[in-house]
């Protein structure tokens, strides 16, 4: 018999980034008894690293902005695969969620008349991102954390969920282990909110920390929920490339929002050479106009550096492949050039981008006020995730909700910068609200004790395996497979090769061995994370094979153009009755006429 502690709650939130904390706050405000479990300490989740800002049509800087423009920008950026109702709710509710943060103590940068300042970002027609220098995520997570700890929520830090438990068809709880001491915990709850973020750890070069192993996606998949849009993995165009130890660390899009430009080794602003048709009318056709846009000239159009991330990342890859890259295999991102335009440019850069200045100075010996940075694409974000109802965020499994990066639908084929922080707030709140309501209306649910025993046994198996692989080695090989064959540019043959390799890694992961005991043992933790990474990697590869076209973040070298037939479907993934992964295409949700009209008007 496994030993474990049992905890009773109405709503269990898994993950303590922006979405998880916001969901927990909302559920507890509605009177639900709430627990939050998170893999790290409180306040360390990936939200803390968000730099640029929170997209919300507050219209503080440009009064032409409103929810309809934000909605249309989000749909255009997502190549119209987005769930339109989610994009509508997001655009409508983001301003109230940002103001609420201010009421909870967040301090954003200000306009001259004392309101929340907003900055330019890729794909947003008007300056829209509420921000605090380039550490907006820290401000947001600390505000939610400091507000949340006074709400009677039970926090279980450094705790990883292994399995969601059901009673009949609906959610009954979750089984977890405590990373610090290695003890097991049974959480009984009729409603669970997944807020586990992404799966960047499936790749070698990533901006994500060790935590992002796609746990929520794998837990939902195993519990019978549907995953959607898994082929759309966002490669952020600007990660650090040198020195090797910092490869992949994020360089905020805010650098370009403040006037930074991308150059190849010949000093050419190559993004002017390739402006997509659907953005041509809104994009500057000369450097002077682009500069005026970043300085707030309302008659100017935005520079091509502020095109969507999928496009900018692909152009960078092209420059590098065709031999026009920087010495360490990237391109140049230059903000120092603005000294030709602004007095006190160095001070301006340090004030607007303090953590970028600090990061390059300390980690790369580069003074960004004086010289260009070297940057290249880095795995950053999963557009895909658990398919949810737009209003309630409930998945196909009754009682199972998902919000933030681990949910799918808002971003379609490509996410706009700044839309993730607002996503966390808008849909975190909704998930918390509907999870609390669901829990309060449901009968008690009881997990199956035999299933609990089985999960506990499986979790301890790596200690019984004496001749298996080192789990870190398996993880490294998985990252190589995904980086090389399921990366920015994809081909059918390589995707199949990746699937075969993943199948072999799956067998090796089952037999991974660990040394030491259950007390704070990262080798054991890594062995247990492999299951999630493998499920998610397989889902990405299978979905990428299924979508035989190029759209948004998914680029197929063998199908380089868009296919209108694929513009009408989402690729979805489910666990079949025989335990194998089933991939199908399903029609997009219907587009309400009034939303279609907004899209047409904003074209």
């Amino acid at each position, binding site marked *: 018999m496994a030993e474990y502690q049992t905890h009773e709650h109405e709503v269990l939130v898994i993950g303590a980034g922006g979405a998880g904390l916001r969901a927990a706050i909302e559920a507890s405000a509605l009177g639900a008894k709430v627990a939050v479990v998170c893999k790290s300490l409180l306040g360390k989740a990936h939200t803390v690293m968000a730099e640029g800002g929170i997209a919300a049509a507050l219209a503080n800087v440009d009064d032409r902005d409103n929810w309809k423009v934000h909605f249309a920008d989000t749909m255009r950026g997502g190549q119209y695969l987005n769930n339109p109702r989610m994009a509508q709710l997001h655009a409508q509710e983001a301003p109230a969620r940002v103001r609420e943060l201010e009421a909870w103590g967040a301090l954003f940068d200000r306009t001259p008349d004392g309101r929340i300042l907003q900055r330019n970002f890729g794909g947003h027609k008007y300056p829209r991102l509420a921000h605090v220098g380039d550490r907006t995520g*820290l401000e947001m997570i600390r505000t939610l954390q400091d507000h949340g700890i006074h709400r009677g929520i039970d926090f279980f830090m450094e705790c990883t969920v292994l399995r969601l438990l059901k009673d009949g068809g609906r959610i009954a709880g979750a089984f977890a282990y405590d990373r610090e001491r290695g003890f097991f915990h049974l959480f009984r709850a009729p409603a669970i909110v997944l807020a586990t973020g992404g799966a960047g750890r499936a790749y070698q070069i990533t901006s994500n920390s060790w935590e992002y192993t796609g746990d929520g996606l794998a837990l939902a998949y195993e519990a019978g929920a549907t995953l959607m849009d898994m082929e759309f993995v966002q490669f952020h165009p600007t990660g650090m490339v040198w020195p090797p130890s910092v490869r992949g660390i994020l360089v905020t899009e805010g650098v370009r929002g403040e006037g930074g430009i991308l150059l190849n080794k010949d000093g050419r602003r190559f993004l002017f050479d390739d402006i997509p048709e659907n953005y041509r009318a809104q994009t500057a056709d000369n450097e002077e106009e682009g500069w005026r846009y970043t300085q707030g000239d309302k008659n100017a159009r935005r520079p091509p550096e502020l095109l969507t991330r999928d496009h900018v990342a692909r152009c960078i890859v092209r420059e590098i492949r065709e031999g026009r890259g920087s010495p360490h295999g990237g391109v140049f991102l230059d903000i120092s050039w603005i000294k030709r335009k602004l007095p006190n440019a160095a001070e301006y850069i340090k004030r607007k981008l303090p953590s970028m200045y600090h990061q390059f100075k300390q980690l790369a010996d580069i003074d960004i006020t004086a010289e260009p940075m070297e940057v290249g694409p880095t795995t950053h974000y999963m557009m895909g995730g658990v398919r949810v109802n737009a209003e309630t965020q409930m998945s196909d499994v009754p009682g199972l909700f998902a919000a933030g990066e681990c949910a799918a639908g808002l971003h379609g084929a490509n996410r706009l910068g700044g839309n993730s922080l607002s996503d966390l707030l808008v849909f975190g709140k909704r998930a918390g609200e509907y999870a609390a309501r669901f829990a309060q209306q449901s009968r008690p649910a009881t997990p199956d004790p035999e299933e609990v025993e089985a999960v506990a046994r499986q979790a301890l198996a790596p200690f019984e395996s004496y001749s298996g692989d080192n789990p870190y080695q398996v993880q490294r090989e998985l990252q190589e497979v995904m980086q090389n064959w399921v990366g920015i540019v994809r081909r059918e043959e390589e995707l199949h090769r990746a699937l075969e390799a993943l199948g072999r890694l799956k067998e090796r992961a089952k037999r991974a061995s660990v040394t030491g005991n259950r007390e704070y043992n990262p*080798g054991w933790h890594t062995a247990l994370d492999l299951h999630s990474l493998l499920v998610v990697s397989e889902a990405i590869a299978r979905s990428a094979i299924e979508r035989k076209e190029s759209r948004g973040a998914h680029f197929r070298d063998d199908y380089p153009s868009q296919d209108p037939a694929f513009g009408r479907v989402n690729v979805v993934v489910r666990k079949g009755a025989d335990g194998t992964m089933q991939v199908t295409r399903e029609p997009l949700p219907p587009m309400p006429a009034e939303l279609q009209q907004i899209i047409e008007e904003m074209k």
Partner: protein
Amino acid sequence: MAKATFRIWRGDAKGGRFEDYTTEVVPGMVVLDAIHEIQATQANDLAVRWNCKAGKCGSCSAEINGLPRLMCMTRLSQLSLDKPVTVEPMRSFPLIKDLATDLSWNFRLKGSIKPFKPRPPDAPDGTWRMDQADVDRVQEFRKCIECFLCQDVCHVLRDHQLFDEFIGPRFLVHAASLEMHPLDIEDRREELRKAQGIGYCNITKCCTKVCPEEIKITDNAIIPLKERVVDQFYDPLARLLRVFRGNRSG
């Protein structure tokens, strides 16, 4: 390729010892990279916390060659590699295992500090107006990444173990970020003086020296808070007025 030796603390609450591990050095490498390489290839069960690897999350605090630092921001090029680099856990907190310490005291403590309480909104739409200059002053404190290195190095905690009487520099910075918030109307001076023990700080500035965010903890947070507390409780004129008015809250 060059190699370096790391002398890493291995052990738990029951006891431990330093063990030496040698690994290859690549350009730009930070201490956390070396720890990861050792963990992945030589010591799978080596306990260490980390998240962002870019100095933004404050997870990887440790004592490197005796100095409290973030492992992710300490480059090997700043250290002498002729002799082993020692890496040990923060010594002021109870050890869990290897480089991971029990930080739960810090998280419990925060809940005891009165939360943010704003003045009524300035505008009919429920929003406030603030000057950038007023925001800037407090943003210095809000930069804190909660690495707890300041708590680790503070002699009131480290040497005198006054965990029940003193909240430490981190939470004085937190209190300052609330007390000096342009919108906040709560009063925390009574607790600062009594339960939170601000008087224990004798301004040696060790906390300021180790802060990776370069927050001037002593000068900009603790000293102004001490002045507020003193103004309230020890100003003779105010004290006289309180006697007449019977008002203790100031």
